[in-house]
């Protein structure tokens, strides 16, 4: 059924092989922590990396607004790219000015959006 895509499957298998190996070899080759070794060193070894003043920020904390802005803008412009690809592919073969006008209009509208967002300062990272 997936005859034509066999190479992809082969690569996938190889990838999983290599990835899995790298992930698990340490368990096999590396030194083990002795069961029952409750010494403070073993316990503390498991603490996540800390440096500087201890701070009570838990794992999940809030991000700057720019992260959310970038995410939203990414969606907007990525959809633009996704819409442009099919037209781009057939543009050469259709060779019609109408398609060109459509593409230019579409990109121009999104360019207006970019200008609006740019001037409103959503792009500079705060």
């Amino acid at each position: 059924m997936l005859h034509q895509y066999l190479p992809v499957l082969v690569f996938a298998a190889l990838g999983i092989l290599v990835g899995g190996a790298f992930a698990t070899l340490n368990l096999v080759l590396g030194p083990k922590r002795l069961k029952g070794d409750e010494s403070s060193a073993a316990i503390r070894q498991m603490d996540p990396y800390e440096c500087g003043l201890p701070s009570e920020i838990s794992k999940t904390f809030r991000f700057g607004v720019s992260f959310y802005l970038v995410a939203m803008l990414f969606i907007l412009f990525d959809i633009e790219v996704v819409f442009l690809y099919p037209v781009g592919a057939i543009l050469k073969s259709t060779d019609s000015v109408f398609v060109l006008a459509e593409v230019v209009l579409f990109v121009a509208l999104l360019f207006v959006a970019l200008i609006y967002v740019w001037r409103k300062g959503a792009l500079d990272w705060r």
Partner: protein
Amino acid sequence: MPDLVLGLPLADTNFVDATWIMIVKSLVIFIVILSLVPLLLLGERKLLGRFQQRYGPNRVGPYGLGQPLADVGKLLSKQAFRPKGAVPFLYEIAPALTIISAVLTLAILPFGDVQGDVGFYGIDVPIGILYFFAFSSIAFYGLLLGGWASGSKYSFLGAMRSAAQLISYEIAMGLSLLGVVMMAGSLSLVDIVKAQGEVWYVVPQIVGFLIFLVGGFAETNRPPFDLPEADAELVAGYGTEYGGMRFGSFMFAEYMEMLIVSGIASTMFLGGWMGPGPPGLDPVWMLLKMIVLTIFFIWIRATLPRFRYDQLMSFGWKILLPLATLNVLVTAVLVVVT
């Protein structure tokens, strides 16, 4: 009737050779690339040394050739541990995910045309470029999962930052390749290379090429854009809590990704396997161009200072994106007018 996977029709590939040939050629490609990566590792450290007027590693084996083996050996012997706050399963598979997606992208790199009944490439999918984008965003998942699952705030913030950087540059890369697709009139990589018969697309699409390369640096977190896991900043970014070969696999994936980006760049802009000499030499030309571009990667690492994060983001949005959009517009007009 196209094949159905989970009910969704799959595009037929342009050329199907015998089953065993497919398996063999995939293995050959994988082995060649797998061997290239340690060489690249070493090459980078040697070249950096040379740039800084010092020798690179030359203690282990002749000219330091044994160095990569030594590194891998060292990493493998580390203790596999998991930090307290980590999410067990996701913590392990994150590095593997980046490797799997990097390896899968190899399938579409064309190393030559169909000679006899063997296509010198994994598969020639009519939606070539989109395949590349698809799997490069899966790598993005691996990276993000790694940062979040390891439970420490440093790695989480590092992951978020690199994620933001990645998605900002992905758009510019997408637009830059669009110019080439418009000129070639098809998405499949093999057709694009064939379309570069008389002139390589690097000439008309110089802007696209430069944007793609800069995007490539950002995509692989390479030096000018490697702020998220730069030592001075967030220790090792998303890789802070990883040790041993898991940390190694992140490195491995990064180098693999570098090779792929230069491979795609050479296919799209530098005429892929096109070069003087008999068709037999095609894969050699392709590998040569990939290595030249990789060296360019390393060269940039040695020269350019690191971007500050807000400069990095505004560069992506305010310069690359408008430039790429204009490039697309100009190409579209030229393609239709001429």
